[in-house]
Structures are given as structure tokens and as C-alpha cells.
């Protein structure tokens, strides 16, 4: 029987520890190690960089938690509506809305690492049931990003009902994203990292998905639908998909959603209201609760987009606690009268 002598044991122990140390050292050389450590107290530097920021002509900090400045001559928000008829293409609605905002190039620069975050909350039903974002809306955004020269477009969500791979397939989103040249990415546990929220009013720390923190551009694509506690799930509610600890956010939901938004502020919010779910949300399942209104709301201002979307359900922006909290924190504007809104009729 070959023996493992004490000498050999000690030698391999030293070798092993040396390798570990070398590993640490090399990692430290390339960049400061452990920037995601859970006890880290240093404030995170950047969340979502806008192209303007990367070009260095804009002060960094505030840009993270407020919408991009609207260039002169462009609207703050675009509403694209199907002008009647059954064959309005969701892709066309998205394209026209983005043209109205000045083109995807305004938000996505060449080589940018883009994350598109639709609502794929459950893997129960196909898109007709309006529980998950319209696949062609997501696909169109991926295409536009690719056309604008994005380096990589990843699409992800973290469903609460059923495993993600099932939800990705059943929602129909996977098919459209792949066809458009994007990538469906699942969200593994180890990438949710403890993150400080410096501007938070209530929720000062939260485990947030790392890719979202590191992405150059985050495009938020919620579907507008009913929800018993939030009343409606729209853009800010959709950002819940980037965190894991859902129960904790439910207490004081409105303020905490605004806190989260301040940390992962989307470059662009596109509310999918092609079909809206008016009752039994967020899961849906009955076509009787679905209304087809062929509408796309696009704006870099998430609070404004949510405010406008609330009116589609006969509500006022202030009826939504998170819109109130978001406006109070300066994350955007909820007074629709003060916004420049361009309305586009598509089709016929």
C-alpha cells in the first residue's frame, strides 16, 4: 500500500496554501479584490452608466438615480398607440416609440453591455394572458439595441412561480429574444450581492443581482397589470425582479420600491400595454381579465412612465404609493401636465 508520509503531507499543504495565496495576490493585482463583500461599507461607485456619463460630459452621481436630460426638441415621453385594427404589430409600436425618443442610439452606445428586464413573473401562461411582457416587445428592444451596436444584450427575470427556464419558454420571450440576437440569462444565487442604497429612505441595503449593477444600460420592460397591494405593477414594481428577498420589501412596499429604483435606475423604461391585465394579477390566467389596447409607453423617466400608465387603468399617478415615493425622492416626475408627451398613432 503506498503510504502518504508526513513529509509529503506537509509539502502538499504548503504548496496548496501557496497556491491559494498566489491566487489572492493575482486577483488583487488585477483589481481590488472582494468589492462585493457583504460587510463592505464603502458606497458603490456606479450603477447604470448612461452613454453621456461614459463620455465624461456629465456629473456622475446624480445621473444614476434620475432620468437622462431630455435634449431640446425631443419629448420626455412617447406614447405609441395602435390606430385600431387587429394587426398592429407590437414591434412597430416599439420602433416608432423609440424613433420618437430620438432613437435607441441615444441610450445605447457601441459595444454597450445591455440588460433588458421584462416581467416574466410566472411560467404559467402564454403571453395572451398578459401576465408576462409581450415577447415581440422584448424582441423589438433587443433588435433595436443590436442595431444601435450593443456589444451584448442579455434578457432576464427572476420568476416567483415555477423555475426560470420554464417561464422563459412558456412566456414566448426566449424564442423572440434568441431570434433577435439576444441572450436569455438565468439569475444564479451567488450573483445577488449585498448592496448599499445611499439615497434610500427606508431600505438601506439589499441583495441585488450583480449583472444589473454592472451593466452599461438597463432597459426596463414591464407589462402593465393589476396587483392587489401595489394596485398596479408597472416599471418600478418590475425592478423587484433584480432582488431575491421579496418578503422583506412587501412591508412599506411603495417606499422600498422607490429606494430600490434609486439604486438600479433604468436608462429607459418601456411599459408594455399591448395587452393589460385588469384583475387577478399578477398571475392572471383568464382572457376575460385581459384588455388589448395596443399601447407602448417609452421614457427615460420611470416615474413619468408609471404615472402615465396608471391613467390607462382609470387611476391617478398619486394612487400608486411607489409613484408618490419616487417623485418625492426626485427619481422622476409624476405631474403629467408638466411633461412633453408625444403621442403617435401607428397603423391603418
Amino acid at each position: 500500500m503506498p503510504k502518504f508520509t508526513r513529509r509529503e503531507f506537509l509539502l502538499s499543504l504548503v504548496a496548496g496554501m501557496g497556491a491559494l495565496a498566489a491566487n489572492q495576490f493575482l486577483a488583487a493585482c488585477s483589481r481590488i479584490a472582494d468589492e462585493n463583500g457583504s460587510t463592505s461599507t464603502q458606497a458603490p461607485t456606479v450603477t447604470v452608466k448612461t452613454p453621456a456619463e461614459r463620455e465624461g460630459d456629465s456629473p456622475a452621481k446624480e445621473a444614476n438615480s434620475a432620468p437622462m436630460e431630455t435634449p431640446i426638441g425631443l419629448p420626455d415621453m412617447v406614447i405609441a398607440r395602435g390606430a385600431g385594427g387587429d394587426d398592429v404589430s407590437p414591434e412597430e409600436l416599439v420602433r416608432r416609440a423609440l424613433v420618437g425618443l430620438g432613437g435607441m442610439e441615444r441610450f445605447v452606445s457601441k459595444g454597450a453591455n445591455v440588460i433588458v428586464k421584462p416581467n416574466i413573473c410566472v411560467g404559467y401562461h402564454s403571453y395572451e394572458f398578459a401576465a408576462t411582457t409581450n415577447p415581440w416587445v422584448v424582441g423589438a428592444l433587443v433588435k433595436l439595441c443590436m442595431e444601435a451596436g450593443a456589444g451584448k444584450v442579455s434578457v432576464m427575470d427572476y420568476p416567483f412561480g415555477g423555475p426560470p427556464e420554464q417561464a422563459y419558454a412558456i412566456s414566448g420571450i426566449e424564442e423572440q429574444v434568441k431570434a433577435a440576437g439576444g441572450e436569455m440569462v438565468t439569475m444564479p444565487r451567488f450573483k445577488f450581492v449585498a448592496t448599499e442604497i445611499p439615497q434610500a429612505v427606508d431600505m438601506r441595503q439589499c441583495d441585488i443581482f450583480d449583472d444589473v449593477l454592472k451593466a452599461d444600460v438597463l432597459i426596463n420592460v414591464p407589462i402593465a397589470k393589476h396587483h392587489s397591494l401595489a394596485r398596479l405593477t408597472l416599471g418600478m414594481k418590475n425592478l423587484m425582479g433584480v432582488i431575491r428577498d421579496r418578503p422583506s420589501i412587501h412591508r412599506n412596499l411603495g417606499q422600498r420600491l422607490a429606494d430600490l429604483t434609486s439604486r438600479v435606475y433604468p436608462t429607459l423604461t418601456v411599459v408594455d400595454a399591448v395587452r393589460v391585465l385588469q384583475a387577478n394579477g399578477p398571475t392572471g390566467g383568464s382572457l376575460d381579465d385581459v384588455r388589448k389596447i395596443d399601447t407602448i409607453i417609452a421614457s427615460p423617466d420611470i416615474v413619468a412612465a408609471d404615472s402615465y400608465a396608471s391613467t390607462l387603468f382609470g387611476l391617478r399617478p398619486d394612487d400608486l404609493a411607489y409613484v408618490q415615493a419616487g417623485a418625492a425622492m426626485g427619481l422622476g416626475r409624476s405631474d403629467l401636465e408638466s411633461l412633453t408627451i408625444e403621442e403617435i398613432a401607428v397603423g391603418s
Partner: protein
Amino acid sequence: MKHTGRRWVALRKLSQYLALLIFLVFFVMTRLGGERADLLALLMRLDPLAMLAQLLSSRAWVVGSSLALVTILLTVVFGRAWCGWLCPLGTVLDLFSLNRWRVRSGPPANSWRAVKYGILIVILVAALFGNLTLLVLDPLTLLFRTLTVSLWPLLDQVVLSLEIFFYRFSSLAGPISTFDSWVRPDILPIEPVQYRQVWIFAGVFVGVIALNVIAPRFWCRYLCPLGGLLGLISKAAFVRREVREDCRGCALCTDACPTGTIDPEKDYASDPSECTMCMDCLEACPRSSVVFTPSLSVAAWNEYDPNRRKVLTSIGAGVAAVALLQVDRLIGRGHPYMLQPPGGTLNDMLRKCIRCGMCMRACPTGALQPAMLEAGFEGVWSPILIPRLGYCDYACNACGQVCPVEAIPPLSLADKRLQVIGKAAINQDTCIAWAEKTDCIVCEEMCPLPEKAVRLEPKEMVREDGTVVMVQLPEVLGERCIGCGICEYKCPVEGEAAIRITAIEGEIVY
């Protein structure tokens, strides 16, 4: 001839590794394995012991179970070649032979070989009376169950820990993410799927391997009931090991034989019931005196083979054991929170379930857990649904699809969605809305039904400090609820959920 022997041994090892690999691939594919269900069921349906016992017990013929005849036929021709060439547990036992740590005292007396026949007879007799508990000792179910319950969650945990550790180094974040996208969700789950009392299952498995210390393939020689069944058939196997006249009695084959069946006192002859056709003796023999040739006779009965007295004793033990189990008061009344997989009944489960664990592997949320004593001793390690550990996914019907014996009926997704597993009930003393007078609504939000089975009733309530608040109070609409349990799983109340699924069926009809 040594050369030929080496080739045969190499071929056997190839077959063993391939079979183990296929077993593992099937295991991995079983998760959520709806469309490939017929293919996946193949694995257990090749097992004649499980299929025979299931047939005796349920008295229902699952057409696919005829596949077990293939294994029987293989045995009629080649003896226990299944054990030596195919059985994945046998291969694991060869891989972890523990030869270095073998005890000096040598293998136990030959009479111990009778134990496996005893277990076999007790299993078959119990099955005749509608009990399948001892199928937990079937080698295929044992390995599959251990993989499901213990080894895969363990692997997942280790991989996750490594991922968390290495992800902290920013230079490794990219490679780790790429690695993760390879293994998840195809091989390991994205959300952890874990089981309770994992150590019991791991312990049994480690124990079976550890017995190798006493003798090589201890399990196969002395304990395996499937080995016993195939052994009995092998008495009349067509191809058998023979020793030619020119044998000089060097005893190298005796030393090489992993089942210890080559007896120097009987001219190095072997018992076809014990021989796994592994060909190690062929390789060991310096004179090519060992041959495997056709023969048409029934091999001699040994002192350890079943005789009338042993058979009668085993039958008696089986009858007594089953009778004792069935007077257990616990299962007579049922367990108020013991839920069956969708479409299953406790009766069906006890009579049909072969304890393979494929349903638990298929379940994407870990809702299906091995029963401990909830279903009495009779129901040990059959699946039960525990909503606090996992919920029945509204878009999944995998468990019924993969079940090789239809203990869980193979329902279409539309039918499964109508299947009532149990009924939810709210405990108003602990519910956040009712007791703390604070909006929560999680149970309503999570309810997957198109017409939700939880209704929110806004009501003005007075808190302890006198403030008047509007609270949305949840109520269960019993006639709608299907008992999928996602409300219980997601209920944010610590410890026992404030909404629980109660069983609607529990009693067993004998």
C-alpha cells in the same frame, strides 16, 4: 487465453461505465422531464424485481413494465450478467471497492448468502398483500433515490459555495459566470431543491459501500434482493462458467472472483446464482482452463440456497410484518397535513410506489419529499407533498409523467390543474393581515388560479393603539382551491405558515 480474458474484462468495464453514465444522464434529464417521460421510465421498468412486486401488489398491469422481461431474458441466457455488466449500483461498488481497507478476517460464512433470498421472499409475499415498503432495498431505486435526495443537493451546495467564494475575486467573476451557465439549469437547479433528513439516505448509501470492507461486493453477494431474483433464474442460465480438465488448481481464479463463489473444494466450480459473469477469472487463469460455455441443465442447489424451511420462514415473516404494519392506527386515521402528489391517493401510493424517487427528482420545486412516518411505516420513502418546502408548480405535471408505475397518474397539464391536492385554510391568529392588521396579500398574489382562490376583503380595523386602518383581509374560497400550496410556501409568517393546506383524503381502504 489471458489476452482474451483481458479483452473481455475491458469490454465488461466499458459496458459498466456506459450503463452508469446512461443512468446518470437519465437521472439528470428526469428533472422536469415531461416530454421524454416514456424514455425516462425505461430505467426502472428494466428492473424485474420492482416490476414484479408492483404487479403483485397493485394487480394492475402497466404495459411498459413488460420491459423487465428483457432483463429476465438476459438472465436466462447469461445469468447474473446484469449484476456484473449493467447494474449501476454494482458499478459504484466496483469503483469504491475499498480493497485497501479490507478486513483480515475474510468474508462471512457462505450461509449469509441466504439473506438476499430471505429479503426477496419477504418483498414478494408483502407485495402479494399490498405492501412495497422493502423495495427501498432494490438497487436501482436505492441509487436513484440517493442521487435525488442526497448526492445532487450535496453537489449543488458544494458548487454553490465554490461559486460564491470565487465570484468575490473580480478577475474570476467572468469565468465563474460562464461555468455557471454551463451547469445551470441543465445539470444543477437555479433555486436549491433540497430534501429533509438527507443524512439518512446518504447514510444507507455509504453503509452499502462500506460493507465492501468486509468482502468485495458484499451487498451483491449477501443482501441484494434483485440479485437474489436474478440468481434464482440463473440456476438455469444458458451460458455458464465451466472449468476444464486441464486446471492445475493454482487458485488464482478463487482470489480474483469478486463474489467469492469459486470453490477450491469443488474443483474450482462456481455457483451460477452468485457469478456475475465479470470474467475476472478468465483474465486471472494462466492456462485458459476457465471457459464460458452453453449448457442446458439446472445448477446444483447449495446449502445457502432457499429450502422449504427457509422459504416458509420468510413467508411467515412477510405475512406477520405486513399484518403488523396494517394495524397501525396512525395510517388508519391519516395525517391531517399529509398531502399526496397531484392525482395520487395514499391507497395507490402504498400499493404501487416502488420508492424510486423519480417524481421527487422531477419536481422542480422540491415539493415532493420522501415520507418518513407520516404515512405509517408502510409509506416510508414514498413521495408526499410538503408545501412549506416546495409548492406544486401550476405549469408542471412532471411527477405523473415520469412515474414508471403510474402510482402518480400521468395527468395532462389541463387535468393536473383541476386536481385537488388539499384545501388551504387561514390561521387568523398568526396571519399578518388578520392578527397584525397590516396589509400583506402575499397568498392572494401567489395564487395561480385564473379565478383566485384567495379573496381580499377590505375592512376597517382598529389596531391596539387605537388607530383605525383599512386592511385587506384574505379569505380562502374553498370550492376553488386546488391545494397547490404556493400560498403556504410563500407565506411570510415565520415558522408555521398562517395559511396551510389540509389533506382531504387520508384513510386507507384495505
